[in-house]
């Protein structure tokens, strides 16, 4: 952390009370410090002041120099000076009148359609008009009218009549997210928020403007007309859609989630949420929710899943586990809570007797296993958002924050914009996100990342952010650890999924037990669990039974290999909906979705984030912990807890591991293979909005996803003989996919960038992944020019 000099403090008198605030504080903030809320529309503490709405006028009787201002001044743009004396609407008649005057003007062209407005009941305009406005309006002319509503995107809808032109939305999109796709156009009373023709406001952060809007002008197509504030039950919880750990206020109506909003949490998400976090909540109530336990009747190939009682399902699963014993494998979703992960982790070790448990339902490697055990699991002084803000330099390695951890991206952008942070990105492509961070581009082929990491210059004040895709490049994590440990720089590993850090802490890794105990040094945990763990250090290579929880086959390097594995083993599936895994399973347990449970996440900062039950659980599913405990009971080795709270208590009681930290990986990079002319190396990341299951049901949100385009450099396109306008056919180990494509002049040669999981175009379906080699050719065009 860099040293922050003590700010010079000034003392001001606000409504007769004194407040001491840092020099340069805006009067509106100083008033807040003194306990007075001055009404405002355009002001927002996280946006640059603009002074547009003029609602916050206050009387300044002494500007600190003995002289006052003859007329009321806007508190949102006036910096306080020592000795300043100001009166707000509380004590100053002139401020009160000025505010009432402005309110009369604000309402002049407002349609006053509160009874049919979504914002009614939670509207700053409504509230402030009640407090600061006059009962009667003197304007008796004709109001300005606009055609409405206007779609700014498939997701965001604008009512120009309600708009008070505070420009919070346009300032947010410009200053915070860097997507200035909405702008003011026209002037005077014709002024309005607009998009450019055929350029919708498809920002990953567009939902924030709905929340920022102090009136009902901006609404989301997803929520409008679906609830009134007084019908909603609000629960504060944590977003489960990535590892950023954003606080959310989730609104449920009649037991169903209808809306999610960012909750203020200065240290984490400030006041923001990404659109995936905000609108990606419908998966649990869309598609085929499993409503009863199921067991396969007949053999694996021809048998069908039949709904059975809980007892029958548990019996079937217990029989299989009894038979397979140590030859059982556990694959847990990276989205699970700490408690669930701990439940599976303990169940695998103490009930089944295997260390074959993994939370990485995504491409992974043994090198990463070692890396996580050695460098992440025992983290005691993690990098934080605040550290990113005060860092001198942040280097992104295998990390694309705008798509993978959007709130990290916003924080980096804030630091770049306000505090002079320099960002550097090691990548094969200069992404839009990097562009918005003004990042320095270090062009690297994916396979050359280990060398590029070795060449990094790491000074004090530098933070390296490593993404989970690094696991796919042999030698990259080894090179990274070696480089960082021999420098004053700091390292943070940012997984994509919300539960991964928690799962690490819960020991859902083959060589790692809960509490950071290596399987080779487990005595402390054996004593605590009263279960001998020393005998179970092996890892099942071809498990005869697999316990799979919340896993999608597309998440792996090769979905076909994954499906093959699932057909060969006896599969016990824990899931909320009928996924591909569930369909091929032998026993299926309906699990309660996250919104029906309490629990804990640890975000990428290792910060504890609590997940709250938002809606009343349905009667047709149980929590995974409950199911595991039932199974454990039947198997005669009770788990020791039946609830999430019980699991948490058990986890918290684990004695601290005091032994040596497991060794860091030392994997040598692969020798670069010679590429044929038509071959290229894959560069990829998961776009924020893709075919992810957690976006199921969020159709408007999905409609704002970026166009699916492969990208290659002009030289690579030429070498492969790609014809512009014709789709490129990308062939991997297990098949081929066709992508529309465009030239990207800044791209590294012999590399093709592809989205990892675009709808219908998952790279896992052809066995391609970051760093793998694919062949490129033009999609076959039949004679006669018809595709």
């Amino acid at each position, binding site marked *: 952390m860099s040293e922050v000099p003590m700010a010079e403090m000034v003392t001001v008198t606000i409504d007769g009370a004194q407040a001491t605030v840092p020099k340069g504080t805006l009067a509106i903030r100083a008033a807040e410090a003194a306990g007075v809320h001055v009404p405002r529309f355009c002001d927002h503490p996280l946006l640059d002041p603009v002074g547009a709405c003029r609602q916050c006028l206050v009387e300044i009787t002494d500007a600190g120099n003995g002289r006052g201002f003859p*007329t009321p001044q806007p508190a949102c743009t006036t910096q306080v000076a020592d000795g300043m004396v100001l009166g707000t609407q509380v004590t100053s008649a002139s401020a009160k009148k000025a505010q009432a005057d402005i309110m009369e003007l604000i309402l002049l062209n407002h349609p006053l359609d509160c009874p049919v407005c979504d914002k009614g009941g939670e509207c700053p305009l409504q509230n402030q008009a009640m407090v600061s406005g006059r009962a009667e309006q003197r304007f008796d002319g004709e109001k300005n009218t606009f055609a409405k509503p206007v779609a700014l995107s498939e997701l965001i809808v604008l009512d120009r009549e309600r708009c008070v032109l505070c420009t919070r939305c346009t300032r947010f999109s410009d200053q915070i997210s860097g997507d200035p796709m909405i702008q003011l156009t026209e002037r005077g009373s014709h002024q309005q928020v607009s998009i450019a023709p055929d350029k919708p406001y498809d920002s990953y952060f567009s939902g924030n403007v709905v929340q920022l809007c102090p009136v009902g002008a901006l609404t989301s197509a997803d929520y409008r007309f679906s609830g009134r504030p007084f019908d909603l039950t609000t629960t504060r919880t944590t977003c489960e859609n990535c590892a950023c750990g954003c606080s959310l206020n989730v609104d449920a109506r009649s037991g169903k989630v209808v809306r999610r909003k960012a909750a203020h949490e200065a240290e984490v998400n400030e006041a923001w949420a990404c659109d995936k976090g905000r609108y990606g909540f419908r998966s649990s109530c869309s598609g085929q929710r499993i409503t009863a336990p199921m067991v396969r009747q007949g053999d694996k190939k021809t048998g069908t899943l039949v709904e059975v009682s809980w007892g029958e399902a548990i019996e079937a699963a217990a029989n299989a586990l009894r038979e397979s014993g140590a030859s059982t494998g556990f694959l847990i979703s990276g989205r699970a809570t700490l408690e669930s992960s701990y439940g599976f982790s303990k169940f695998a070790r103490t009930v089944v007797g295997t260390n074959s448990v993994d939370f990485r339902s995504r491409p992974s490697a043994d090198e990463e296993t070692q890396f996580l055990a050695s460098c992440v699991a025992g983290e005691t002084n993690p990098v934080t958002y605040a550290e990113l803000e005060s860092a001198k330099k942040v280097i992104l390695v295998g990390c694309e924050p705008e798509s993978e951890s959007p709130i990290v991206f916003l924080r980096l952008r804030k630091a770049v914009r306000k505090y002079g942070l320099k960002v550097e990105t090691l990548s094969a492509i200069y992404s839009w996100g990097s562009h918005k961070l003004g990042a320095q581009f270090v062009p690297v082929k994916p396979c050359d990342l280990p060398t590029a990491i070795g060449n990094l210059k790491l000074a004090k004040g530098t933070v390296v952010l490593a993404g989970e895709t690094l696991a796919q490049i042999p030698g990259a994590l080894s090179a990274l650890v070696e480089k960082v440990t021999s420098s004053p720089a700091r390292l943070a590993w940012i997984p994509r999924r919300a539960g991964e850090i928690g799962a690490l802490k819960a020991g859902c890794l083959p060589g790692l037990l809960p509490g950071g105990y290596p399987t080779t040094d487990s005595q402390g945990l054996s004593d605590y669990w009263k279960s001998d763990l020393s005998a179970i250090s092996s890892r099942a290579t071809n498990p005869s039974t697999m316990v799979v929880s919340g896993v999608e086959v597309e998440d792996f390097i090769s979905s076909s290999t994954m499906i093959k594995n699932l057909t060969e083993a006896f599969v016990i599936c824990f899931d909320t909906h009928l996924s591909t895994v569930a369909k091929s399973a032998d026993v299926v347990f309906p699990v309660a979705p996250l919104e029906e449970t309490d629990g804990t996440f640890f975000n990428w900062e290792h910060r504890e984030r609590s997940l709250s039950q938002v809606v009343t659980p349905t009667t047709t599913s149980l929590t995974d912990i409950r199911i595991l405990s039932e199974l454990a009971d039947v198997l005669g080795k009770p788990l020791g807890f039946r609830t999430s709270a019980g699991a948490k208590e058990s986890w918290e009681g684990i004695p601290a591991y005091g032994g040596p930290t497991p060794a860091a990986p030392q994997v040598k990079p692969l020798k670069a293979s010679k590429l044929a002319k038509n071959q290229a190396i894959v560069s990829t990341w998961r776009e924020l909005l893709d075919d992810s299951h957690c976006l199921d049901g969020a159709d408007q949100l999905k409609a704002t996803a970026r166009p699916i385009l492969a990208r290659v450099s002009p030289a690579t396109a030429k070498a492969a003989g790609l014809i512009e306008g014709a789709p490129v056919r990308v062939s991997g180990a297990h098949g081929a996919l066709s992508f529309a494509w465009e030239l990207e002049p800044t791209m590294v040669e012999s590399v093709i960038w592809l989205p990892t999981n675009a709808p219908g175009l998952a790279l896992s379906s052809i066995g391609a992944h970051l760093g793998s080699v694919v062949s490129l050719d033009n999609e076959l065009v039949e004679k006669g020019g018809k595709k």
Partner: protein
Amino acid sequence: MTTQLTPVLTKNWGTDNSWTLAAYQKQGGYTAIKKAFAMTPEAVVGEVKESGLRGRGGAGFPTGMKWSFVPQDNPNPKYLVVNGDESEPGTCKDIPLLMASPHTLLEGVIISSYAINAHMAFIYIRGEVVHPIRRMRQAVEEAYAAGLLGKNICGSGFDLDVIVQSGAGAYICGEETALLNSLEGLRGQPRLRPPFPAVAGLYQCPTVVNNVESIASVPSIIDNGAAWFASMGTEKSQGFTIYSLSGHVQRPGQYEAAFGITMRELLEMAGGIREGHELKFFTPGGSSTPLLTADHLDTVMDFESLAAVGTMLGTKAMQVFDETVSVVRTTLRWVEFYAHESCGKCTPCREGTYWLVQLLTRLEAGEGRKGDVDKLLALVDLIDSKSFCPLLGGAVACVSSAVEHFRKEFEVGYHTPAWEYLPYDRSALFPVAEEVDS
């Protein structure tokens, strides 16, 4: 006190091809730059300070002092921006100057840039006036060709590039920070101050923004000395300036005179009010300055004296109206202008002018409701001094002063249309076919 015309800026306007470099040089042009280059930049600033030259764009801020605010230790480049976005109703001094003698301005630009250490200057001209823009561009080309612009001007070692930029049709871009936004290609809306342009102006670099006439006055000051300039005018309003008379006068036009002249004297120079009519009201400095009546004919037309009678010198644009003119109609036209030109950024201006237009429209049409005049004044009070920038002040000024002087005429609007009370064709200077907008 002098009551004579003092042609300095306008001296060469009548000569053949006055806008060419040759004609300007024949008149003794571009001698001041040589004098300036022989001085230090600080001395040039000192000379202009000493002359007492005040900004001619309306606010009357001392020009030399503005220059001295530029932090010379700031490592960023310094810029000079000339404000030629002359758009206010009645104001018409800069455009004739640009047409008649663009080199006067350019010489001023060179000297002023030298004084503030700027190597890049911008001349921002109202976009609708195509001819002056062409003239100015032509003059800049001529100057480059003659070595008066570019590298090492006249062997002085001083480099200067000049860009002539046309506006895009917004009155607000005459406000200096909105002008800077427009120049940067941003939306023409005023910026928050502080920081002031002198510290963080164009592209966040130290910038001086001066009116065309202010900069055009600089060569004469350097040529003849600060004392010569300061010898003219009144105690606090020194020097000479261009007064623009328009409307119901016999000879409308530009009258250059030393400060201290009265409206009566200016009217006399312009041949008085048109035959058979008498003065009803006039603006002292464009539509944004509270209007005056015949009672104020002997007021001295300088910054202080006009402030003392509750108005402003502004841009010294006297729009003169005789007794045939409906003050309600005039005020509405002005207010319509402000509503049309309101940038929309702040609530009082955007909504206030919208309301003002509606109130005045029904008063003009004789459809006013009882109490509308008080409502008009209440509305003025509602919006007064609450806006982000001074644009709204202009709208407020014309309405409140008009009601103050001619309340009865507004009350006529409760029952009689203005065009019946004071038929519009009587005030027309030229035969008009049809009044289309009433």
